[in-house]
């Protein structure tokens, strides 16, 4: 992590970062989050034999209040601190430290002083965002920072950095009666060869638009759009390399992991079949008149 230690911004003593999955469990409650990529979370209690060996088990441990620095978050942009190594990923944030380990399968551990309530929900969600990103990497897919908008023809992904227009496009889509899966994070999975294109699945992580609670069926990928605000609406094709680079830039957490970035790129290339790809740069105006050109 350069010249700083992982967790320095958040932890009273980053040298005491947990070195292994151990500690005082918060309790024996169990949560199973079962999505298309299998059960992947478990809270508290000892590990138990599981029929679903493809699942990812995570344990939640109690941490002391004094382990965390008090941070004035007014006007502050929150970003988790990640430190990736070949055998583990460590992360630290507001009132959380966590590890992802490969033993050899992926498993997680979270330490927090919050055992429930609204604050715990946010802490657990932040942990899950990272966990799911690595889980999808293992399943040949990727978590993408994008707006996913679906209709009967499939799901279109609108990608771009913060401020590129994902929320704007989502708002315009809702006004047209389209469905916004999420304007924050969405999952892209490999399809089944030429006959089945990659598909998009909603994740329970949304920003201003999208419903994180209701289920939504997976939708075939109908197009990738790199967003650029403009005075006029236009659509320019992207090469496969440009599309892959765009997806890589929009794959949070894993794209900052030097040990797994090339695997991520391999996944993304597999999701972009050789030959013409359904990927474009969408230059759009705020009037929302660009929808018809998407169907050309």
């Amino acid at each position, binding site marked *: 992590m350069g010249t700083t230690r992982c967790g320095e911004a958040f932890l009273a003593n980053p040298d005491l970062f947990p070195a292994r999955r151990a500690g005082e469990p918060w309790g024996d409650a169990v949560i199973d989050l079962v999505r298309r990529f299998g059960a992947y979370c478990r809270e508290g209690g000892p590990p138990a034999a599981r029929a679903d060996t493809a699942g990812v088990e995570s344990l939640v441990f109690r941490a002391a209040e004094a382990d965390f620095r008090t941070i004035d978050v007014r006007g502050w942009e929150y970003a988790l601190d990640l430190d990736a190594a070949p055998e583990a990923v460590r992360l630290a944030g507001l009132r959380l430290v966590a590890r992802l380990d490969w033993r050899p399968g992926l498993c997680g551990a979270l330490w927090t002083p919050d055992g429930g309530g609204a604050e715990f929900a946010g802490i657990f969600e932040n942990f899950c965002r990272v966990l799911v990103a690595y889980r999808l990497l293992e399943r040949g897919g990727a978590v993408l920072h994008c707006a996913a908008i679906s209709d009967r023809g499939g799901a279109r992904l609108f990608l771009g950095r913060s401020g590129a227009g994902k929320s704007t496009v989502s708002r315009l889509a809702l006004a047209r009666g389209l469905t916004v899966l999420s304007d924050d994070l969405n999952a892209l999975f490999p399809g089944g060869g030429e006959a089945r294109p990659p598909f998009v699945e909603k994740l329970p992580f949304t920003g201003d638009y999208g419903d994180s609670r209701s289920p939504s069926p997976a939708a075939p990928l109908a197009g990738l759009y790199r967003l650029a605000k403009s005075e006029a609406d236009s659509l320019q094709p992207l*090469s*496969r*390399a*440009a599309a892959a*680079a765009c997806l*890589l830039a929009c794959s949070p957490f894993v*794209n900052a992991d*030097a040990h797994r970035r*090339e695997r991520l790129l391999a996944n993304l*290339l597999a999701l972009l079949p050789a030959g013409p790809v359904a990927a474009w740069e969408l230059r759009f105006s705020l009037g929302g008149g660009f929808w018809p050109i998407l169907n050309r």
Partner: protein
Amino acid sequence: MTPLDAGSVLRPSRDVRYRRIEDEAVVIRQRAAEVLVMNEVAARILELADGRRTVGGWIDALAAEFDVDRATLERDVLAFTAELAAEGMLEPADGV
């Protein structure tokens, strides 16, 4: 770093990873966490920068592969190579 010329021998910096994708290349700068797309000629230059061939050898190879005026090619390759070196994407093979 010593000035670049046709006798220079360069290689991609250690934090640069790239993959050819059809006629282009996706380039990842690990430390900067930066992703770039390079066109066909730039991608070929990265391939030619193997730490053994001189820049003059790259120019010979490119001259055989692309329909381009030799003087223009030399000027463009040296300028682009200097740009990549200044950005820390290429480094001398001998570490000088």
